[in-house]
Structures are given as C-alpha cells and as structure tokens.
C-alpha cells in the first residue's frame, strides 16, 4: 500500500496550542510519527540571564499560565536555597494551598478538553463548570484568576484570613460535589470507555525507558511523584495518596487525573487546618554564589530548574526542563499502530503544554 504523509498541525482544529506531528499513514493506520515543536518559542532562558531575581520570578510565572504556581515555586525555592533563608511556615502552607488549587484547576481543564476531543461536549462544559468554582477561589485568594503571582522571594504576597479560609473550603466542597456527579460518567460511561480504553497504551517498561513523568508515568503503573520522593513545601507533613493505574491507556491517564483532584482537595483541607500563625515573608538580602537544582511535581509531572548564581543580582544561567518535553517524545512511540482518528485523543491524554515546552 502507498504511504500517505499528513502534517498534523502546527495549526489544527484538534490542537489547543501549536505543535506539529508528521504522520506517515498506510490506509487509516499511522505507521510513524515525529514531533516538531518551537512554534511558540519565547527565549525565556535567554531573558532570565538579563533580569534581576525579582523580575525573573514574574517572568518564570509566565512560562505557562496553566502551571504558573509550579514554575514560580520551583524558581523561588531554588533562589531561597541559594540565599540561605528559611521561609516562614505560614508562607509554606499558603503556597501549598495555591499549588494544589493550581493542580485541580489544571486537571479539570484537561478532563474537559479530553471529553471534548472524545466528542462529549456536554461533559466538557460541566467539567469546566466545576473548574470555575476553583477559579473563583484562586481569584479571592490571590487577586488573579490565572497569573496568581502569590509567591515573592522569601514568602507570599497575601495572607489567608479566617473568612477567606471558610470561603475556600465551602467553594471547594461545592466544586467537588459537582465533580462527584461527573466522576460516575468519567469512570462508568460505556461510550466514553469504548472511546478511551486500550488506545495509546504505554507499558510500564516503556514508560520507564522513555523517562516519561507525572500522570502519564503513574497511569502506566509506576509510583513516582516528586511530592513524595523529593519533598518540598510541607508535603512531608501532610497525608495524601499517590494515584497509580496499571493499564497505561488514555482512559487510565484521565482516571489518574480525576482521582488526583480528590487527593489535592484533601491536601488543601489539611493545609488550611494545620496552618500555623506567624509571618508570611522575610526579606531576602543577597543571593550567594552557587548552583542549585530544584524540582517540583507540576500538574503534568516533574518540573526541573537548574539555577546558577555568580553572586550578582542576576542569575548566570537558568535551565528549565518542563514535564511536557519527555511526555511529548513518548507520543512518537504511542501513536504508531493507531488510527488517524485516535491521534487527537492520544495527544490530548498526555496533557501537552506547548507554552511550557517552547519556553
């Protein structure tokens, strides 16, 4: 049979952000896939070498708006380590609350997008309705819906008072109550199951070999979460489960994210309950010479920052490795053998964030 070449992207109705898949087809089956990124390259690593630390913080938040808190946290904890300061406990708890709200918001966004890609638009709108409650919480907590900018070097910008804490918990409950209804659809609906089961399978061995991260890795049966293995903030003081599934298909990747939303909600409740009183920030005097590798578990997986300082007020080098890079690479292994119609859904299931990837 004659091979057919299809450029899938960079601008395509099924893609939320620009990237390109070069697909070789035989009939309806994909024979090989190659990923090409860079359509949104912003040169942020270059810019960071020319900005002062507090300006860098505002810039790294804009690497990506859907995991803004992860970038901000990863950068800020590295710089704080170089400056050798201890952030007050209360600030760490507030950061944890915002971090997990960010994770819920990001996971619900993907669950909505995935149901849209599966052709289930009602579910898409209902999921985003549940997400809207979380966006309200974030707006009240930080003043912003998207770029929270809650972190400053040495602490946080805003405190949580009792009234706000009550509002957060109430709104979170109403969001989860709404999600409870949808959970049944996501896990049990036969149409959605038929559309997402056994496609885009990544076995446990392949997942390890390809070094994928985050929910994609956990859906393939590997229990690896930076919050547990390399704890930051106050995760070592909180009780939460790591969600793992064994099948490694699109369905289990969505299920892992759905169940992680409930774990995040547990973390937020504990963090608000245990929050100690005290200062919310300390001044940062001087960033000493040295280097640090900082990691956090972003909604999409392991996010890594390498920061080198030469003792001046600008960093010498900042390297950002976002979780979508290894996950995108795994697409070249996941897609071949599937039908062209499955490509958008498999691509969506890794929750690609191209704004992150392109930096």
């Amino acid at each position, binding site marked *: 049979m004659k091979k057919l070449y299809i450029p899938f992207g960079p601008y395509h109705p099924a893609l939320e952000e620009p990237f390109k898949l070069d697909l070789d087809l035989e009939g309806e089956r994909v024979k090989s896939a190659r990923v090409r990124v860079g359509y949104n390259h912003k040169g942020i690593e*270059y810019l960071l070498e020319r900005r002062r630390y507090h300006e860098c913080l505002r810039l790294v938040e804009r690497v990506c708006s859907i995991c803004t808190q992860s970038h901000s946290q990863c950068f800020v904890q590295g710089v704080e380590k170089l400056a050798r300061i201890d952030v007050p406990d209360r600030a760490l708890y507030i950061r944890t609350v915002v971090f997990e709200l960010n994770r819920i918001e990001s996971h619900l966004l993907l669950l909505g997008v995935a149901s849209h890609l599966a052709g289930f638009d009602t579910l898409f709108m209902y999921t985003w309705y549940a997400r809207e409650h979380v966006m309200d919480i974030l707006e009240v907590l930080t003043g912003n819906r998207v770029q929270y900018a809650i972190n400053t070097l040495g602490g946080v910008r805003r405190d949580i008072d009792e009234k706000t804490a009550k509002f957060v918990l109430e709104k979170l409950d109403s969001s989860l109550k709404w999600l409870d209804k949808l959970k049944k659809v996501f896990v049990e609906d036969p149409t959605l199951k038929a559309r997402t089961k056994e496609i885009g399978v990544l076995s446990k061995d392949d997942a390890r070999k390809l070094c994928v991260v985050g929910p994609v890795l956990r859906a393939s049966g590997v229990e690896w979460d930076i919050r547990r293995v390399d704890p930051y903030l106050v995760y070592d003081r909180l009780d939460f489960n790591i969600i793992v599934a064994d099948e490694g298909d699109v369905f289990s990747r969505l299920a892992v994210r759905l169940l992680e939303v409930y774990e995040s909600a547990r973390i937020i409740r504990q963090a608000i309950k245990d929050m100690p009183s005290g200062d919310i920030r300390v001044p940062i005097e001087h960033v000493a010479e040295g280097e640090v590798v900082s990691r956090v578990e972003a909604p999409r997986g392991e996010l890594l920052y390498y920061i080198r300082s030469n003792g001046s007020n600008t960093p010498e080098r900042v390297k950002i490795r976002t979780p979508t890079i290894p996950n995108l*690479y795994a697409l070249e292994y996941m897609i071949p053998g599937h039908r062209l119609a499955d490509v958008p859904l498999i691509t969506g299931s890794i929750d690609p964030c191209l704004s992150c990837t392109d930096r």
Partner: protein
Amino acid sequence: MNSCVEKILAQLERNFPEGEKLCVSERRINIRIAVKGIKNFAKRMRDIGAHLSTITCVDEIDTFSLIYHFDIEGCLINVYTKVDKSMPLVDSIVEIYPVADFYEREVYEMFGVIFTGHPRLEKFLLPDDWPKNVFPLRKG
C-alpha cells in the same frame, strides 16, 4: 544525611569508581567524569534503573559544562563533564536513553555542541531557517 543517599553513594562507589565526587547534600549528589566516558556511564546508570531528567549546558567562556541530571528513588545525581569549546564533540546517549533525543537537540541548537551518533540532529525549538553558526545561549 538520609539513608537513601548513603545507599546510592555506596552503589555509585561500587559501579562508578571513575567518578570524582564533588559535593553531596540531602538528596543531591554531584559527580565529575571525563567527557569520553559519558556513554559508558549512562549505560550503567540505565542498568541500575536511573531516570534521565534532563541535560543542562552552561557556557563557562573557555569551555562548556554539560550536566546530566539522573534520578534514582528521588535522589538527584548531577553528572558534570567539561567539553572543549573549540571542538565541542560529545557522544550521543540516544540509544541508551531515547528521550535524550530532545535534550541533546536543544543543547545542540542553543550552544552548538555536536552529539556524535545522534540519529537526527535537527532544530528543536528554533526555526528551520535560523542562520548557521548562531547559538543564542553562548556567551562571549
């Protein structure tokens, strides 16, 4: 220091005698090795089940520092190598860690380090018509 780091250090001493330990802190181990040993090193890292997080390149004016970040059970092992700036050649580790494909291509286009044995050393983030021999993250 936690027991996990001690266990991994013992494992490293046994499997990688050539690595010079630079500094060890909680869940971080820094090792320096010669650039020609990187492929062999990566092979043995894979055999003990390490995860490759990324490859960082830093321009040190007269040389390049390549840092391979490996993870074993939450402990980060940062492997430092020095690359000559006038002849920036390094063995590719794509056949050992397939994902290094993307990481090496990024270092290649940003710094001009050439990874020998890489199956497709093409542009990753920069446009295809980017001028030759212009490397945005090089200094000096």
